[in-house]
């Protein structure tokens, strides 16, 4: 009895603590979303207003500007780069897992080292390369660059997942007449769904958030949302209402995608149970 009460108290305290920590992290987000619906006057009110009459003025303003196109660019580039990275990455990861190269982990480290490269170091070379190719200010340029970075990460992540799949799973299917590619696509790949989800999530966020390369390689046509956001800070001053509205719109796809694959992500956390 005694220990039961103590257990209850412990759970309640833990719950309160969780709420508090969540609030600390959530408050800035809440602030941005609230700001996007405020008038300029409400925005700078001191003390801050928690209750106010919402307005869509900021959204109307931002959607009439270039930002609409920039957001669309971001989504197109992120989507293509994600699909491209995960598809190629899973194939490569499977190869590294099942047919490890004789050179050991050297190639694998080399691939990962791409990820470690400071972006600023490659901005200028990339600019020169894409100028020579005539690909400056195109969607393709950013899709290619982002994929280079994302594939290396995807390979590392997914190789871990493939390594976890017992070899017998594949051998059993081979005996049943499935070709090596079918074994990959029908047995092993479906078992790495949590890993694919995590990889896709990561690639998407990376591609959406990237700023420096997008700034260097695009000017108008393929300009992305982070660049556009930065440009809202002009010498005439900063329109915080519009920036908040833009930031809120920018968040929506990521939130949406996360909700879509959340079951897979959660399963990924308990992936070790696969063999059970």
């Amino acid at each position, binding site marked *: 009895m005694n220990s039961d009460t103590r257990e209850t108290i412990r759970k309640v305290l833990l719950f309160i603590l969780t709420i508090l920590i969540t609030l600390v992290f959530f408050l800035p987000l809440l602030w941005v979303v609230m700001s996007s619906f405020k008038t300029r006057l409400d925005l700078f009110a001191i003390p801050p207003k928690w209750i106010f009459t919402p307005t869509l003025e900021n959204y109307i303003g931002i959607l009439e500007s270039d930002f609409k196109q920039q957001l669309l660019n971001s989504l197109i580039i992120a989507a293509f780069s994600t699909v491209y990275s995960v598809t190629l990455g899973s194939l490569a990861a499977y190869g590294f897992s099942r047919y490890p190269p004789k050179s050991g982990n050297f190639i694998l480290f080399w691939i990962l080292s791409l990820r470690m490269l400071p972006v600023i170091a490659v901005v200028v070379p990339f600019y020169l390369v894409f100028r020579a190719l005539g690909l400056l200010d195109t969607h393709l340029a950013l899709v290619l660059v982002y994929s280079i970075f994302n594939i290396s990460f995807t390979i590392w992540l997914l190789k871990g997942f493939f390594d976890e799949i*017992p070899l*017998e*799973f594949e*051998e*059993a*299917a*081979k*005996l*049943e*007449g*499935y*070709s090596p590619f079918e074994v990959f696509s029908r*047995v092993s790949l*479906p*078992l790495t769904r949590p890993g694919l989800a995590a990889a896709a999530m990561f690639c998407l966020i990376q591609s959406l958030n990237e700023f420096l390369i997008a700034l260097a390689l695009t000017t108008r046509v393929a300009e992305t949302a982070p660049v556009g956001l930065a440009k809202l800070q002009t010498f005439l001053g900063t329109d915080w209402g519009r920036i908040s509205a833009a930031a809120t719109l920018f968040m929506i796809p990521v939130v949406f995608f996360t909700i879509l694959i959340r079951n897979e992500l959660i399963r990924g956390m308990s992936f070790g149970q*696969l*063999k*059970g």
Partner: protein
Amino acid sequence: MARLVLEELDLWYSTTVHAVDHVSLVVEDGELCVLLGPSGCGKTSTLRMVAGFIIPTSGAIYLDDKRIEYLYPGDRNIAMVFQSYALYPNKTVRQHLAFALKKAGLSASEIEQRIQQTAEFMHMEDYLDRRPQALSSGQQQRVAVGRALIRRPKLFLMDEPLSQLDARLRVETRSNLRRLQQDLGITTVYVTHDQMEAQGLADKIVVMDRGRIQQVGSPIEIYEDPVNLFVAGFIGTPPMNFIEGELIPEDSGLCFNHPEFKLRLQPALLDKLDDGHKLDGRQAVIGIRPEYVQLAPEEEPNAIPAEVYVLEPQSNEYVVDLHMGEIPLKMRQDKRELGFKPEIGRRVWMRFRQNRMHLFDKNTGARLA
């Protein structure tokens, strides 16, 4: 209708690791052949070469006179039950069975019919739509077998399929498996390190050690006529007793001499010797199974005295650890036949049933008689 022939099968994993050393073997149609040996003896590598997961360094594998060692596993018409069962966590039992048949070129209705048949045959109807996690270990084992036999393969391979079950279930499943194999008449190669399992299941046992076949024979042949010290010691629990000594000719005949005792070898044993005269002075090892050691409570002529070290009752038998001086020996006998309880510390007298005794060469380990 399948006969498996391994011809001089050789496998090097690297220039120094000789995993399988010139293994030649014939498994007749409908036979259950058990590859038995300690871990690292090459039994699993041999099985995997038959399945097609490893290509042999040299040698040939024939299945019904068709050479198969270079064929893709899926083109060999072989099914396998894995030690881990290899059941997919994301598929139900029904989906496993369907998956196994998809490449067999059957119509949807035929597939459905086969699944029903197999489920009935293996008593799996009740959990056809469950995933492996929701099954007991015994049920998982059955699914693994069902999944292999639904394709009606020419050859069944089994890699320690019972090792995940607890002792009791293992014994029951073993006899069911034996019956099933017999009913279906599918040629089977079965790998295990458990010699009791091998004896209980096999038509033919192949004892392997260090990549080489040590002996091939029926369970009874392997048990009663082991060809060398390795096989003799590997088969049987409690294991065969070994005593090292020297063969000395005396007036009364050939004697086995040991510092603790002298044993006159009887015709029952000597008749089995190939050429008795060459054995004089040879370093030899006596091998005698625990059940062929007889105990008497009182001194008897020609009996060797010993002391009871530990007594272990086991069902209707006693397993007795004896110390003959410094030499430990085990014996095993029905309580009633024994007629007295060999209490720990008690002095008893032993006799060896020489017609069931073996003599091995101490240096080569080969059997002399």
